[in-house]
């Protein structure tokens, strides 16, 4: 595994939020799929993102490559802000409007503490601020279109190799699509690049004229990887790239990804639910639970010193291919209600030890520090 000494951040996600809404009025339902996560991916590093289904790990990946417009927070690629959510500004506008209402009400009811002069001076400022915030929102919405070029450097591999390949396109068309979208028209060059990238992922040049259904699951996943590689990405987001594959094929794909990572110096955000694979593949691991990263640390550190109760329960549930071990193991159950969070005792993301982050309240952090070896 590569060392983290370089520590050059390539992708930074700050306070990312992704909400999905359905219905309107009274039936309106807001699902907070990702609720404020912060993480940094360094150059040449693999960051594993684990959690149960529905915890928001896939949404995180999709938000980063802008398959969804992010609701709040920001994504930086090499210190360039490539996406920003507008919710923070909208909230500020709401707060200002609220304040205006209050002031107007107070003036109307002729309370002693406020006078018409106060309101006038506020209104002057108010218009300016609203204008400013509205322009920030417009800016945020424009941001990812302006930074389209940076998105070429971030590519994604999807979980289901059947659903993610268009059955009516040949392999060559699928792989070359990214080049064509970027304006490449030189057929010879395209053909050469497709052949090269097919070779890199372990397929043959003659496979280029075939259709996806002619391939097995593992080969299809290779096509998906080839498609991601053809425009020379620097960051690869791999969303459960092996969970749809057969056991004997999974190892082939893991080894391929490992080779590619070393060969091209890729930084990988590896999203998965299988902890043993994530441990094997990642330098650092972030554990997600219900839209939050609850713990993030070096992968060895996380397995040695799991602090958050959810991480512990997850680690205690990994099936191990060792019958004697399985016979005597104890499992922990995680109860979110044990946390006892409330006003004045709200959880935050703390760095409890260099490189080891945990989502906990102040009081809990003190307790965890005692457990720390």
């Amino acid at each position, binding site marked *: 595994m590569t060392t983290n000494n370089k520590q050059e951040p390539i992708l930074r996600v700050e306070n990312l939020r992704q909400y999905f809404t359905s219905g309107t009025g009274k039936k309106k339902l807001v699902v907070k799929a990702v609720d404020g996560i912060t993480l940094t991916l360094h150059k040449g590093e693999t960051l594993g993102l684990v959690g149960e289904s529905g915890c928001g790990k896939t949404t995180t990946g999709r938000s980063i490559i802008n398959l969804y417009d992010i609701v709040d927070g920001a994504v930086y690629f090499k210190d360039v802000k490539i996406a920003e959510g507008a919710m923070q500004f909208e909230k500020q506008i709401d707060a200002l409007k609220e304040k205006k209402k209050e002031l107007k009400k107070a003036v109307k009811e002729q309370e002693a503490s406020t006078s018409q002069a106060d309101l006038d001076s506020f209104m002057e400022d108010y218009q300016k601020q609203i204008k400013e915030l509205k322009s920030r929102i417009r800016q945020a919405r424009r941001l990812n279109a302006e930074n389209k070029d940076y998105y070429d450097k971030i590519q994604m591999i999807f979980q289901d190799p059947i659903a993610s390949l268009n059955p009516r396109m040949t392999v060559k068309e699928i792989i070359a699509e990214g080049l064509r979208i970027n304006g490449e028209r030189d057929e010879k060059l395209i053909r050469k690049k497709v052949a090269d990238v097919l070779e890199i992922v372990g397929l043959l040049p003659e496979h280029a004229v075939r259709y996806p259904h002619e391939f097995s699951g593992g*080969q299809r996943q290779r096509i998906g990887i080839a498609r991601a590689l053809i425009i020379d990405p620097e960051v690869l987001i791999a969303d459960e790239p092996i969970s749809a594959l057969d056991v004997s094929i999974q190892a082939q794909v893991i080894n391929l990804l490992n080779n590619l990572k070393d060969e091209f110096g890729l930084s990988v955000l590896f999203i998965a639910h299988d902890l043993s694979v994530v441990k*094997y593949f990642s330098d650092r691991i972030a554990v997600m639970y219900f839209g939050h990263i609850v713990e993030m640390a070096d992968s060895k550190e996380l397995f040695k010193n799991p602090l958050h109760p959810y991480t512990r329960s997850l680690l205690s549930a990994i099936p191990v291919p060792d*019958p*004697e071990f399985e016979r005597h193991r104890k499992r922990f159950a995680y109860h979110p209600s044990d946390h006892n969070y409330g006003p004045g005792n709200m959880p935050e993301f703390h760095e409890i030890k260099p490189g080891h982050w945990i989502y906990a309240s102040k009081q809990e952090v003190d307790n965890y520090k005692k457990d720390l070896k």
Partner: protein
Amino acid sequence: MAEKNTIEKVLEVKDLAVSFKTTNGTVKAVRGISFDLFKQETLAIVGESGSGKSVTSRAIMGILAGNSIHEGGEIMYAGKDIMKISEEDLHKIRGTKISMIFQDPMSSLNPIMKVGKQISEALRLKMGLSKDEATKRALNLMKEVGIDEAEKRIHQYPFQFSGGMRQRIVIAIALANDAEILICDEPTTALDVTIQAQILDLLNRLKVERNLSIIFITHDLGVVAHMADRVAVMYAGKIVEYGTAQEIFYDPKHPYTWALLSSMPDIETEEKLFAIPGTPPDMHFPPKGDAFAARNKYALGIDFEEQPPMFKISDTHYAATWLLDERAPKVEMPEILQHRIERMRSQHSIDLPGAKGGEKK
């Protein structure tokens, strides 16, 4: 585990072979497999998709697809051959004596029927219980499989349950008529690890409480280690290795078992993984000789010519590979696996099969 032999045999599969007629010819899905199932044991059948493990279990349930051909062999249950008896007789066994649960609990349940009714339906049809009695039994079953507030939840629909809870309902239905044999076809593949652990523990508890025999089909070796008393490894329609869980995990003999064990990392693995090259064979045309030979770096010349017989390693441990023949060259299992087994040995102080200085190939 030698005393297992004296324990009652509940199911015996002998030389079972099943094919399917398709537009492209016949697919030989299961090609002559034999195994026994004893009282209160879990037999795990491991293999990748297409190895014939699901077909085997469907044959035992008598729910093979219409285009299947029974090529030979028998499945003996209570003195009768399940492959030969009439549909009417099979009806008396299926669901009452032998039950099955599937991978996706949502598709096993009727989405527009309350779960309580789905459980009591099984009781009323098979046991002829009255409505009240059946509902009472259903309530008890729901409590037994660990559903809280069963009185309230009995009136809910499947969509109101989480994946793990749905699988618990399916287990309750399968066990409603006090089945003797429970076939689990990848019951936890669709579930999260923490939920998976709960369902596995539930199955283990029920096995003891209800004196069940379980056939557990999966491709996850970690799950096998947790569940199985004995393991059968299947590849291309054949059982290639067969033994107790300890023998399979600490002293595997077949190259395919080696490959399976070393192709997945465990939490301590750092070495490069041992990937099995290629893909499983096309079962329209099963290869001559050992089906795994083409993907096996340890394959001998004879592997491509002749089917290896089952070599006996111990009373409970058999493997079909020419490497066990006395004329075969001595080969070692992949390094990554050697390391892992050594590590496991050093962690457990008890005697494990195939310890150093034990039998050699």
